[in-house]
């Protein structure tokens, strides 16, 4: 797998009963209490709502030192948080795209500024 290559889509979960889309597979749908979900591909592009650099990480990420975390508004309306790759002074409001996550942390969404 190429490290941090742009993705065309992200996989999300859609309630069969009410079509609500969530980032991760829930036990029940918070909107209709349905229990059946299908996977759905959503756009991997969006805009960076805000970001920070975590310099005092919790134990689980202690070995990483510091890292950027961003909140992204995807073009389909979903808002998700994830890691952020950037080297500009302040990318707030810029376009971002999801990229392939790290092999060691495949569940953490990673975005980079386009």
């Amino acid at each position, binding site marked *: 797998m190429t490290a941090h290559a742009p993705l065309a889509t992200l996989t999300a979960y859609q309630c069969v009963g009410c079509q609500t889309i969530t*980032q*991760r597979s829930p036990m029940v749908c918070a909107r209709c209490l349905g229990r059946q979900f299908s996977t759905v591909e959503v756009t991997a592009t969006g805009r960076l*709502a*805000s*970001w*920070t*650099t*975590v*310099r*005092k*990480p*919790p*134990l*689980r*990420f*202690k070995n*990483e030192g510091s*890292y950027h*975390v961003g*909140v992204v508004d995807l073009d389909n309306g979903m*808002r*998700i*948080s*994830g*890691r952020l790759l950037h080297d500009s002074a*302040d990318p*707030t*409001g810029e376009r971002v795209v999801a990229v392939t996550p790290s092999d060691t942390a495949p*569940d*953490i*969404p990673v975005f980079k500024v386009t």
Partner: protein
Amino acid sequence: MMRQVFVAGTGSTRFGKHPQTPIEALAVDAGAQALVQSGIARDRIGAVYLGNFISGPLNGKEVLAGLVAEQLGLSGIPCTKVEGACASGGIAFRHACLMVATGVCDAVLVVGVETMTHASTTDMTTALNCAMDNEYDGMSGLTFPGLFGLAWRSHARQYGTTREDIAAVVIKNKAHGLKNPLAQMGADLSLDQVCASAMIADPLQLFDCCPPSDGAAAVVVCAKDMLGDAQHQALIRVMASAQTSGSARVSQHPDLCTFEATVAAAQQAYQQSGLKPSNIDLVELHDCFSIAEIIDSEDLGLVPRGEGGRWAAQGRTGMQGDIVINPSGGLLAKGHPVGATGVGQIVEVVLQLRGEHSNPVKDASIGMTHNLGGTGVACTVHILGREA
């Protein structure tokens, strides 16, 4: 018909470093002060509510409510530990008020307690992250300083709030802390000192963050007919008690510059009390980080939306301002022993309304407290008033 609820007694340890004192001993210290001051016999105390967040992961101790009650000679009554992250103390106070208001109990002891300073920064950050949805935001490595770093950037972008505006909150609250003997770290800080402190979660710097703290606070609430033996003549009534919830996921907050739980709790509190924001003389609000005070003051309706930073910079939230915010020093200076904070805010407001505070708000008769947990997942707002 709900009964009126009064605060009959208060107690508190100093917030700060008590690494050699067991957590339950701090709680017993504050609880005994409140019981004695209330003048209410212990056999009239109908229940104990204890606010605490992380005694399990940081102290290896649970069942704190029963443990503390036993050491206070309160046996056989319902003893309940309440957890709502940083709002644990406020929630404990609210439940005690409800027990009295509904007539289930005539008097209830509320205690809030936490010890944190014995833990390493990594262990503490990990424990505090229990207040996050770790299947979502926690997975990305977000922390609470990080959350408020995100909020800061959003507020700056939407409203033009500057580093200097936000530093004004730090300088004000640290100065207030110097006048409060219960406070952990008051200081006379300059803008340059604030701006030179270490970066924690950009743009949040060290002085923008409340310190980890040990401490306990306690109050006794009761029905009016129990007040006869109270040592204080000033009657302090709970005029409103509101509790709300919001999303535990930052990604479910459509606007990072507001906590919906605070807005809703404030609206409920104003409705319950029949008061308006302009009636509030002082507020002890949840300034876990400097930017939080700005957001909270706007969410509570005390400052116009987007103006929190400028009001702080202009001195309009200081001791002589339009609304006095955190005369205790707030979490930034008084400290934030998580489970104790919400109860400590009640103690601070009661002292102000009795005219007994060391940093007094002139002619204060109505005070508000605001206690916020996690990413706004839990919130309480209380309004207290001095009865004529």
